[in-house]
Structures are given as structure tokens and as C-alpha cells.
């Protein structure tokens, strides 16, 4: 029978112990990879621009763009939802185009220009889309919101660039901004709170202001 004292391990001790385990396991797997391949090591240097600022990182090749932004650059506005490209919470802009940051490796973006929600606007200087989401209550818990906003900003640019969608009736006519178009084009961003109707209203207002 154990004495109560034997279980009296502080949370800090546990964290130290588990961190050591992770370090050993990580080093082991990197070494393993090196012995298996004749080419480059398991880490790579990458340099890209994030929200206008040049950033240089040396990353484990496995680091997704999402993890590079959140864990290495501490830009935690971009959210990790499903981590499998199904929810859209991690949507950021790469060279102006929206992508799922969870499904692309950071090292694949050497020289790219990345914009996150932090780059679109700040609390005292909101992007019009951020202001519209606030005005129209386009969120409840807010977890999907950074992705929704990055996605919708890029989406309006896609319409402007005359990129058609699944619901575009005439492929040879200019793209229009309608609720049906907005809903189809935003289908890669899931909102579990179901704020969709207000999101469409927010985007519609910004689109109208732009037009």
C-alpha cells in the first residue's frame, strides 16, 4: 500500500519529467530520419514575410505553417480547429490567397508573403470586415472567427478577380456578389455556433461598401 506522500508529486515535477521524455523521443526520431536518408537533415531554414515583417526560422520539416505561426512566431490569432483542412479555422492568406495553414508545411513557403488576422487589423484599427463581424454579431464563441474573416476578405478579392464558383450560373459572365455566392464560397469555414446568417450579413455589407 502506498503512502499518500508517494503521490505527492508537484505539477511542475511532472511537466519537467514529461518535457524530458519529449526531448529524448524527438531527438531519437530525428536521428532515425537521418540514418534513413542520404539527403538533407530533418530541419530546414525558411524565410518569409508575416504581416509585413521579415521572419527567418529554422524548423523541423514537419512544422505546418499553422504551427510555425502559433508556436514559433506566437501569432495565436490563427486557430487550430480540426488540423485536417476540414474546418477552415486556420485560414490565412499566402500571397493574397486564402489557404488552410494546417495543410501546408512552413518550409514550403520560402519567400512568401503571409497575412494573418493580426495583420488585417488591430483592436484600435479594425479591418472593415472585422468591424462588420462585430456590428452584425457574426460569431458566438469566436473560435472560427479569425479564419472566417481572413477567408471572407480573400473571397471578395476572388469575386473581384472574376473567379467563378459552383453556384455561378453563367461561367462566361462576371461573378456577382449574392447571398448564395457568399454561402457557397465560404463553405470551407465551419461555424459550430451557427452564426452563418450574421456572417453573410457582415460580408454583404463590406462587399456593398467596396462595390
Amino acid at each position, binding site marked *: 500500500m502506498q503512502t499518500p506522500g508517494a503521490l505527492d508529486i508537484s505539477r511542475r515535477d511532472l511537466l519537467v519529467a514529461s518535457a524530458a521524455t519529449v526531448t529524448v523521443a524527438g531527438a531519437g526520431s530525428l536521428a532515425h*530520419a537521418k540514418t*534513413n536518408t542520404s539527403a538533407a537533415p530533418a530541419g530546414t531554414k525558411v524565410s518569409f514575410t508575416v504581416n509585413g515583417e521579415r521572419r527567418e526560422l529554422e524548423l523541423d520539416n514537419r512544422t505546418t505553417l499553422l504551427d510555425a505561426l502559433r508556436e514559433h512566431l506566437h501569432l495565436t490569432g490563427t486557430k487550430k480547429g480540426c488540423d485536417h483542412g476540414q474546418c477552415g479555422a486556420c485560414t490565412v492568406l499566402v500571397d493574397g490567397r486564402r489557404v488552410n495553414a494546417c*495543410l501546408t508545411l512552413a518550409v514550403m513557403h520560402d519567400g512568401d508573403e503571409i497575412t494573418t488576422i493580426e495583420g488585417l487589423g488591430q483592436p484600435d484599427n479594425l479591418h472593415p470586415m472585422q468591424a462588420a463581424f462585430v456590428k452584425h454579431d457574426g460569431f458566438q464563441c469566436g473560435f472560427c472567427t479569425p479564419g472566417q474573416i481572413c477567408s471572407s476578405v480573400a473571397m471578395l478579392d*476572388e469575386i473581384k478577380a472574376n473567379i*467563378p464558383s459552383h453556384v*455561378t450560373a453563367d461561367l462566361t459572365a462576371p461573378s456577382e456578389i449574392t447571398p448564395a455566392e457568399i454561402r457557397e464560397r465560404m463553405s470551407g469555414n465551419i461555424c459550430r455556433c451557427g452564426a452563418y446568417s450574421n456572417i453573410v450579413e457582415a460580408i454583404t455589407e463590406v462587399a456593398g461598401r467596396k462595390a
Partner: protein
Amino acid sequence: MRAFSYQRASSIEEAAKAAVGTEGAKFIAGGTNLLDLMKLEIETPTHLIDVNGLGLDRVEPTPEGGLRIGALVRNTDLAADERIRRDYALLSRALLAGASAQLRNRATTAGNLLQRTRCPYFYDTNQPCNKRQPGSGCAALAGFSRQLAVVGVSDACIASHPSDMAVAMRVLDAAVETVRADGTRRSIPIAELHRLPGDTPHIEHVLERSELITAVVLPKPLGGKQIYRKVRDRASYAFALVSIGAVVQPDGTGRVAIGGIAPKPWREEAVDNELANGAKAAAAKLLANARPTEQNAFKLTLVERTLSAVLAEARG
């Protein structure tokens, strides 16, 4: 995710050489499917060759009056290309019916053709799957098979090919251009690119290890009415239960390929000849050798009804 080494290839030759010289190497382009599978350790490459810098990102006219689509042309750009929208509307429609805008912005033409099945048992590493682990069995046969294939299947595998784009490419009789490690090039008709599962469902296409797709070539435009009709559980961002790509000429002749029902984009030229006799006759011919499960037998009816809707739209 397992650790891997990484290199950015700057020429086709460099990419091919790296692939042939490194056991376990894979090319990565958009990465939307490969990385997803690497996170689940279903794909475990030891070396990734980034081909995004190869410049295969243009759509150019061919001397035959068709178009050569670079392997790296993104799904968004291909769907939005003015020539595709005007002369190959079916392809534009199929692309726009697939995935989400974020994924289409990354996904490439070649990668789309080579994407893996979304069979739930292929994705669940706790379940047997002959495609993921040859010889382990097929959990789908007696499992949740609503999404899976009804034709071209085997006792070893009933996985369906998930691509919308490939269905349109099959209707259009596209050709896949490749380069091998020794520098030789070849052109593979889209009909011959994918293999049926048979006893080896883990071998999905005829490409050699280290063979790289450089382009997909469309023959000259077919004209006619071009339709892509996709039936799915959600109105957007879902894989097809059944999809039909069709080109129908004013005289009622045409060609169709079906998605969502087979391990590859499914087309039988003999069925094209049956189109004039209506959807019922054509679907009966198409599905003569179907082997559905209890859960996906509804697809037989759905194919006929979707084809009926497509032919009605073509007439209208």
C-alpha cells in the same frame, strides 16, 4: 507525423533524380492530401521533394488545338481560366464542385489525379485495410460503405476515387504527360492512369516510382452541351455519392463518365452509344456488373436518376 528530410527541387531532372535515389521519397506539390495522410501516419515518406518551384504552372495551347495544363496549375486557376470556362466548361464545373476554396487554391492538377480514397477504413489505422496495409483485410465490405464503390471493385477493396476533376478529364479523354528518372517521357491516356484494385488495391496507378507528372493535355474542344452534376449529402464541400460528367451534342449523341461509384473515374465507351436510348438503358448497361453492398445499393438508382436529370438538362 514521422520525421523526414526535405528538399526544394529546381528542375525536373533534379526532382526525378532525388526521387529515384532516395528510398521512401515522395513528391509534394499542394500537399493538401499528402500532409493530411502524413499526420495520420498513413503516408510515411522519409524524404519530401518539393516540386512547387518547377514552374509547371501554365495553361498553353497545343498544336492540335487543345490545351496543355501544367501539373502545378492550381485547381482555382484552372477552373477560372477563360479558355477552360469557354471550351471545357465541364472541367471548370467539376473543379468548382470539389473541396473548398482554400483547398482549391493549393491543390494541383496532377495532385488531384493522384489523391487517395476517402474510405473511412483507409483513414482509420485501427481497422484492417488492404489498401493501407496489404493483406490485412477489408473492413468496408461489412462496414459503413455508403460512400464507397459499386463497380470495378474486388473482394479486397471497394474504395471509391474521390476526384471530381478526374471525371471531367475522363469525359474529355485527357492525356497525362510524365517524365521518368532516366529522362524519358511518355503520355498516358487518362483511361489507363488508374488501376482497378483486384488483389493489389495498394497499387493505384501505372506510374513508376519517381515518375513525375508534368502536364495534362486536353484534346481540341468537343463543343456540345457540357454538364457536371454532383449529388452529395451536403450542398457544398462534400464528396460525391454520385457525380456525372457529360458532353451531349445537339443530335443526342454524347459521352458520360461517372464519379463516386468506382475506384477510378468510370467511363465505358459502349455506354455512350446507349445514351440515345435514354437514362434507363444507359444506366443498366453501365451497372450490369455492379457489386453493391447493402448500404450503397442506392447508388444504382441514383446513377440512373442523375443521368436522367443530366440528359433532360442537355435537351433543355
